[in-house]
């Protein structure tokens, strides 16, 4: 597989061009609306938070963007290429090199029967890496970056704690240096101290690697820390969007005001 060693090097990108352009994205489940008429641009290095209550269409939107579901209407362009017209081969190749998807439950994103090193190395092998020593070296390097000790490289994820599994999933996704990362509630189900460490780690990685991130969550603290821009969804529609601090400190829409005021204060 002489695949796409070129694809890695083609990361030169004019920063004033949006990386992802979404226009009028609509997904219906029969007569019900999954998400309707969502439009936004995402620029390189930008973190977009999507918040909203359960059933507001956040996850539907994310899965449409990541290509797991096909939207009924609308347009998605990644790097100037029309995602909906793209062949499945190209789309799947893109999703294992240039994109990453971090699941809420690490068990969905990891191979539980395969060692940590194998999990991290899978994407490398999928794009044609065939040197065991180099694959392993890179896996150990990435485990280090997500604060997993190098001597755990041959342990299976089932022997890891929840927080470690989530960090392993992140390492596995970032090993091919993607440019766009989708995250679905990455801190869900973790206790607060572990959450804080994970957020710290994510913030560092996003800054160091210049990642563009779309992060779906219902935890406003997470978006406050990570996201540059924020989109608030309700009943499948975007009710408010803007800079994170602006939206959270001066919410305009009634639902956003409710959302912000519902956060429990310690």
């Amino acid at each position, binding site marked *: 597989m002489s695949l796409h060693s070129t694809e890695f090097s083609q990361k030169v990108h004019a920063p004033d061009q949006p990386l992802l352009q979404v226009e009028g994205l609509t997904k219906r489940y029969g007569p019900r609306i999954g998400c309707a008429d969502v439009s936004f641009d995402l620029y390189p290095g930008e973190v977009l938070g999507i918040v909203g209550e359960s059933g507001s269409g956040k996850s539907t939107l994310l899965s449409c963007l990541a290509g797991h579901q096909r939207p009924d209407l609308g347009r998605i362009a990644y790097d100037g290429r029309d995602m909906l017209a793209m062949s499945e081969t190209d789309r799947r190749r893109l999703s294992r090199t240039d994109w990453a998807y971090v699941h809420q439950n690490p068990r969905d994103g990891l191979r539980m029967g395969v060692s940590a090193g194998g999990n991290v190395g899978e994407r490398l*092998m999928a794009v044609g890496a065939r040197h065991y020593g180099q694959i392993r070296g890179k896996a150990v390097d990435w485990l280090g970056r997500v604060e997993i000790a190098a001597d755990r490289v041959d342990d299976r994820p089932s022997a890891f704690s929840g927080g470690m599994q989530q960090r392993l999933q992140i390492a596995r996704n970032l090993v091919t240096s993607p440019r766009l990362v989708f995250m679905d509630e990455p801190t869900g189900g973790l206790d607060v101290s572990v959450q804080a460490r994970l957020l710290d780690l994510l913030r560092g990685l996003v800054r160091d690697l210049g990642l563009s991130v779309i992060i779906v969550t219902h935890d406003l603290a997470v978006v406050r820390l990570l996201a540059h821009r924020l989109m608030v969804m309700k009943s499948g529609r975007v009710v408010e969007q803007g800079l994170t601090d602006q939206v959270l400190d001066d919410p305009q829409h009634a639902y956003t005001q409710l959302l912000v005021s519902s956060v429990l204060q310690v």
Partner: protein
Amino acid sequence: MSDLGSRPCADAYNFAYLDEQTKRRIRRAILKGIAVPGYQVPFASREMPMPYGWGTGGVQVTAACLVPEDRLKVIDQGADDTTNAVSIRRFFQRTAGVATTEATVIQTRHRIPETPLTDGQILVYQVPIPEPLRFLEPRETETRKMHELEEYGLMHVKLYEDIARHGQIATSYAYPVKVEGRYVMDPSPIPKFDNPKLSGNPAIQLFGAGREQRIYALPPWTETVSLDFDDHPFRTSKAPHDCDLCGAPNSYLDEVITDDASGRMFVCSDTDFCTGRRAGGHIGRLGEAA
């Protein structure tokens, strides 16, 4: 169709257990398999008068290939005289009545004969699980997609796990091969010692999986490459001994326990090959002149 013609023609009709319609279906699958080497062709597997796991796929492929002029050989783990080989051979003797030496069709379970195959022979493998990705990806829809899009990175994850756990590629049988740079194929549970013989073989190699309802094939002279890593290349393996009966230095060996005082001997797993060598005057450490 009142006149079925002369005797040979009448005998050839519904020859070797299967009816003509079934054979037609299987032959179509075989032809498709040969046209697309390494691709698993689905076929309507029939119930055979033996349990799944005893070679129902191989038997159907063999029955579809056999014509009265053929000579059939059946081997099981290399041996001509073990239960499975004997019962399948008897089955075809009763249903087809072909002679079983100097074979034109060879049905095999888990070995490729030591004697090099020649042009015009057909080697039929019994395959338990045709999908090389099965234990890595349980969804059939997904594995078919992976074959379609040539996404074989996962196969290397398995080899990676071997090296990480055992220090070397510990997969010793059913070792995956890539066929003509396209499909990754499970060569049935033959020892990886036999893997090099798959490639550039002058015989037609057919693979039948009865329970899984798949047929795939390697036409003559097909190139196959055993998957490996650059720094952990593919190596064949065998017991580091000579055959104790015929003295053959480079045949695949079975270890036989001979007593309860850790006595053991290593003998060729291909009994026909071993017998032939002994008849030719080769004698091993424990052998007697035949």
